[in-house]
């Protein structure tokens, strides 16, 4: 097809292509939005976002603060990693926590150990109102879940923070429409077009640091309904269950109460890439207990203002 080696060498490979698109999107947010924020949790997708932001804006500092919506149910090493990374970058981090929303009475939980993923939406919307953010940049990807496959890169939210899947703005070429009225906002997803495999290939290529629990380690777990539930103060063993020590890694790092590791010996990004190629279980299905409840549970949560 194309024989000219000089031509092929200058072309973009698939990671270059994805990276350039994401950088372009981040710069559009910076140029078009008055007061954006980038959501950073210490998770792998948001670590990728930080590297992309460095590539988009250095040597200048980021044109937005970082923000973490803390459920209070975090793995301590992830929070430590988050703070280290922020210090390294010399950027500003805002932390708002679900605990505060509970104390205010705007979040009511049925029990202390309930998943706080849904409650996160409330705290996020409160933080958006508090700071007057008109755009929040997140690391969601379209391949994660069916409801996300149809979401725009610049995804409009009304004054209630709601996503209306039937009233999405058409998105053409790379001409994004970030315009909002006061009180409305957009969620922006620069790595919409990446898959889990792309993310791990990029982490390997860029040698990105991640919280250690993404790599194979020994951990106490309880085998339950086909999942390996980590033993934590929030997820203790139930009566009659046996605790096992297994070699595992986390594929997503979210709220402790609903995030499970998978059995794996992969202790480098390269090994995880190899494993991801042949893996037979998609990310959320394997590791998020709350998404399994109903096929449409993500869509419902998104309509409520969840990312």
């Amino acid at each position, binding site marked *: 097809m194309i024989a000219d080696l000089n031509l092929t060498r200058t*072309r*973009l490979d698939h990671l270059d292509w994805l990276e350039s698109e994401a950088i372009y999107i981040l710069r559009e947010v910076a140029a078009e939005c008055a007061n954006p924020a980038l959501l950073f949790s210490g998770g792998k997708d948001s670590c990728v976002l930080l590297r992309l932001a460095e590539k988009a804006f250095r*040597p200048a500092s980021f044109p937005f603060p970082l923000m973490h919506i803390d459920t209070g149910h975090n793995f301590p090493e992830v929070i430590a990693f988050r703070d280290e990374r922020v210090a390294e970058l010399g950027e500003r981090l805002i932390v708002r926590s679900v605990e505060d929303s509970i104390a205010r009475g705007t979040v009511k939980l049925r029990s202390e150990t309930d998943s706080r993923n849904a409650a996160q939406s409330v705290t996020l919307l409160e933080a958006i109102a508090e700071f007057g953010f008109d755009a929040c940049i997140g690391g969601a990807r379209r391949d994660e879940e*069916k409801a996300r496959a149809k979401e725009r890169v610049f995804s409009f939210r009304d004054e209630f923070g709601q996503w209306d899947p039937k009233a999405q703005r058409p998105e053409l070429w*790379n001409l994004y429409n970030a315009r909002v009225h006061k009180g409305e906002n957009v969620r922006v997803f620069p790595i919409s*077009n990446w898959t889990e495999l792309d993310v791990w290939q990029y982490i390997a290529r860029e040698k990105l640091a991640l919280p250690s629990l993404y790599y194979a380690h020994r951990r106490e777990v309880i085998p339950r309904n086909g999942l390996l539930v980590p033993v934590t103060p929030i997820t203790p063993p139930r009566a009659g269950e046996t605790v096992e020590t297994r070699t595992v890694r986390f594929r997503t790092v979210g709220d402790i109460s609903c995030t499970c590791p998978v059995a794996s010996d992969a202790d480098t990004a390269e090994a995880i890439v190899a494993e991801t190629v042949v893996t037979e*279980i998609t990310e959320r299905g394997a590791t998020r207990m709350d998404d399994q409840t109903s096929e449409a549970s993500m*869509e419902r949560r998104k309509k409520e203002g969840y990312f």
Partner: protein
Amino acid sequence: MNAPVHRPDLEDRGVLRFITAGSVDDGKSTLIGRLLYEAKGIFADQLAAVTRATRKRTSGETLDLSLLTDGLEAEREQGITIDVAYRYFASPVRKFIIADAPGHEQYTRNMVTGASTADAAIILIDVTRVGTGELLPQTKRHSAIAKLLGIRHVIVAVNKIDLVGFDQAVFDHVRKEYDAIAGRLGLTDVRYIPISALEGDNVVRPSDRTPWYDGPPLLELLESLPADRADADLPLRYPVQLVIRANGSTADDFRGYAGQVRSGTIKRGQRVRVLPGGEAATVEAIEAFDHDLDEAVAGRSVTVRLDRDVDISRGDVLVDADDHPVLGKHFEAEVCWLDRTPLDPRRKYLLRHGAKTVQARVDAVGNKLDVHSLSSTVEAETLAMNDIGRVSLTVQQPFVCDAYDDLPATGAFILIDPTTNQTAAAGMIRNVQKVPA
């Protein structure tokens, strides 16, 4: 099938984006499901969810591949696809992004949306619905939109060939009928493949049930298509997105112009001009965060530094110093109206082009495209949602105006309703009047 990283012997051909056009009845979702399934893009627990949902919807025993792609709850209730969904899979040499656009008439705007970023279009034809008769109106409509949006490669997937006994005569009939449409529209690169999405014939592997077909299976064809929009030999267009200054020190220490090369190649040492201002300068460095590049091709995001201070702001475009593109203030365009509120020529709109947003006025509405006869003879005074028509526009400030067919990246624009902020129209520049010098 392995991902690109595991085949160092194979060149990574980057990304190919394509759109699939056709209705649910044509087996479009089944075809996409088949591609994903065969490319191991479908993981085990997604399959588990599919068998559960199928049981809910029908009592059938067979796996319904289309349920893998019908995403939203409302759509599952109605059994039709109502919005563009994006799907991903990788072969040993390429990553693919599918825009799955609905085939129903009322959703033309979604097909236009999906087509705007596509390098190729798969037009799906249900051979059992054509028989020895004419092609369906929607096939013509989808093809017209593919042409309108400048999609270079069209693949006609003649589906359900198993249901007509793999009969070459039926395939040849469809081919002849479509050739006529392609000729009228001016589609130049059209390829035909007889497939069975349900049974997998000629999707990923060649089928031994179509011995009369000697072309490649669909996936192989997709792997080999050039992604034209990244052509490095076209004229340089580098719209500046942001001016980057190092903080903390004096403002002149670092000044970089951040952007994505939209067409052509930018090179270190190249003489460039800044439009619309017209000042010339030399490219001193092309920076990519932790290293410098000698050149950057279309699609790459970089930061460009020039040898001297030039007044540059967001929306300005760097072009080669010897290139003299048209700076247009008045132009003709074809637009697809996307908004529920029809075009009102008395109102002003915001026009987004490259990295620039300017005020725009619609001076005249010309003919509307009749997507059934594929001709532009219907006179119109306004355009409503899903209408495609010719308009004359005037913008507040001149900008680099390229004909969409020559340079899609700088020949495209959107119109935004300044009251509602809705994206009101997608436009393609056809004809430009030069600004008097």
